[in-house]
């Protein structure tokens, strides 16, 4: 864990959305984190995971049963909704508009990936600004490093999985080397960190 305490820095604007990027080994990592997010989490969670083209959404199927929050596919022009996990569809880039509505694109691959975590985080950083909490997990590419830098430049906060324990360390390592980490945390601590940084869960949803 880096020097910052597991709390929102004083004076920082409240977290309004959580964006999670992952690649190789990411499904296992997500199955670790999502059960730790409580029902009623008052912000939307958006997951962008590298995957090949598929008529279904393998990520949706893999993590749906492991989440305390409802998991849905991010829909074109659909809004990011608090308390939901929105998963990027395969073979599309996922972007976020100023009104926090989702946009999809079939623009060329970025970092050999579609969806690209950089494409998502750059758009999400523009949309949520300092209210974005970005989380970068295991992966074997350099995708996500530029996105994390964009999140920081917009005033958002960044958690990077500790490369030492990651299934594939390249992606978190690249982001840390590019200066894109406020916290470097082992997988087991990431859910707790997200919860302590986000506003408290809405009571009506937890009862």
């Amino acid at each position, binding site marked *: 864990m880096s020097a910052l305490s597991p709390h929102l820095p004083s004076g920082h604007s409240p977290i309004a959305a959580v964006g999670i990027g992952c690649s190789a080994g990411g499904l296992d990592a997500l199955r670790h984190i999502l059960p730790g997010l409580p029902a009623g989490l008052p912000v939307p969670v958006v997951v962008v995971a590298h995957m090949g*083209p598929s*008529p279904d959404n393998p990520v949706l199927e893999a993590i749906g049963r492991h989440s305390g929050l409802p998991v849905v596919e991010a*829909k*074109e*022009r659909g809004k990011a909704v608090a308390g939901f996990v929105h998963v990027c*569809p395969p*073979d*599309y*880039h996922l*972007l*976020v*508009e*100023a009104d926090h509505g989702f*946009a*999809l*694109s*079939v*623009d*060329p691959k970025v970092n050999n990936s579609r969806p690209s975590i950089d*494409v998502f985080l*750059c*758009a999400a950083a*523009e*949309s949520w600004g300092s209210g974005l909490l970005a989380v970068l997990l295991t992966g074997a590419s350099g995708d996500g490093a530029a996105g994390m830098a964009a999140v920081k430049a917009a005033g958002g906060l960044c958690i990077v999985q500790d490369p030492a324990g990651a299934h594939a360390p390249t992606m978190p390592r690249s982001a840390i080397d590019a200066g894109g980490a406020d916290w470097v945390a082992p997988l087991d601590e990431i859910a707790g960190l997200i919860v302590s940084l986000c506003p408290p869960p809405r009571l009506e949803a937890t009862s």
Partner: protein
Amino acid sequence: MPARASSIHGIEMDLVLEALARRHGYDFRHYARASLKRRMTGLAQKLGCAHIAELVPRVLHDDALLPEILAGLSVPVTEMFRDPPVFKAIRDTLLPMLATHPRINIWQAGCATGEEVYSLAILLKEADLLHKTQIYATDINDIALAKAEDGIFPAKAIEKYSDNYLKAGGQGALASYFSMGYGFAKIDAAIKEHISFAHHNLVADGVFCEVGLVVCRNVLIYFDRVLQDRVLGLFSDSLSRGGFLCLGTKENVTFSAAAPLFAAVDPALRLYKKRG
């Protein structure tokens, strides 16, 4: 008018879009902003501009640059038989119904570099319908249109698309529709002669043909709701009675003002039929 953005990037984008619309009549102001910003930033970098706003004088004073600007801002990529289940459904469900007509007219809107329109033509050939078919393939991007009309693709890409073709119910070998040489694959003239490529701008241009099928996949995702509604209306006006519409698998007419114009044929694959 979409809400004006107050960030510096937002102001710069507005200025470029205003210049394009007023100087050249190409109105991108109803394109979805987030991906447009990515493409505009990429275009500015490619043209050596330090800021997006430096595109403004280029747009205003350098007419020769216009095709490159339109190419940079429009949707550049397609592949053959992307989403094989969709092409299988066109083959198995739509084509038998279209086959009952003496002539078949099809409009592919936003054909980019042609991969999808050739996929369609191959389906029609294998259904023995191509000889009575006219396909109009249109795009705003003249550079892409020229590539589409050339019909030349990297041979390696054809290998990659073969798997999609077979999953879409392909009855032969995809490579058999191309002549191969020097690492490239050129589509057979017999396939191409049934396709007319033409410049058409979905934002501003109107109905130009009556067709039994409109294919427009992964174009509406780049438009805001206002432009989506206009374009869906244009498709409805271009379709004959009971004509079909095929959208991208993540696109939807359900939430559009144009929704009452269409009935779902296969909602999961985004195949619709014009009502009435």
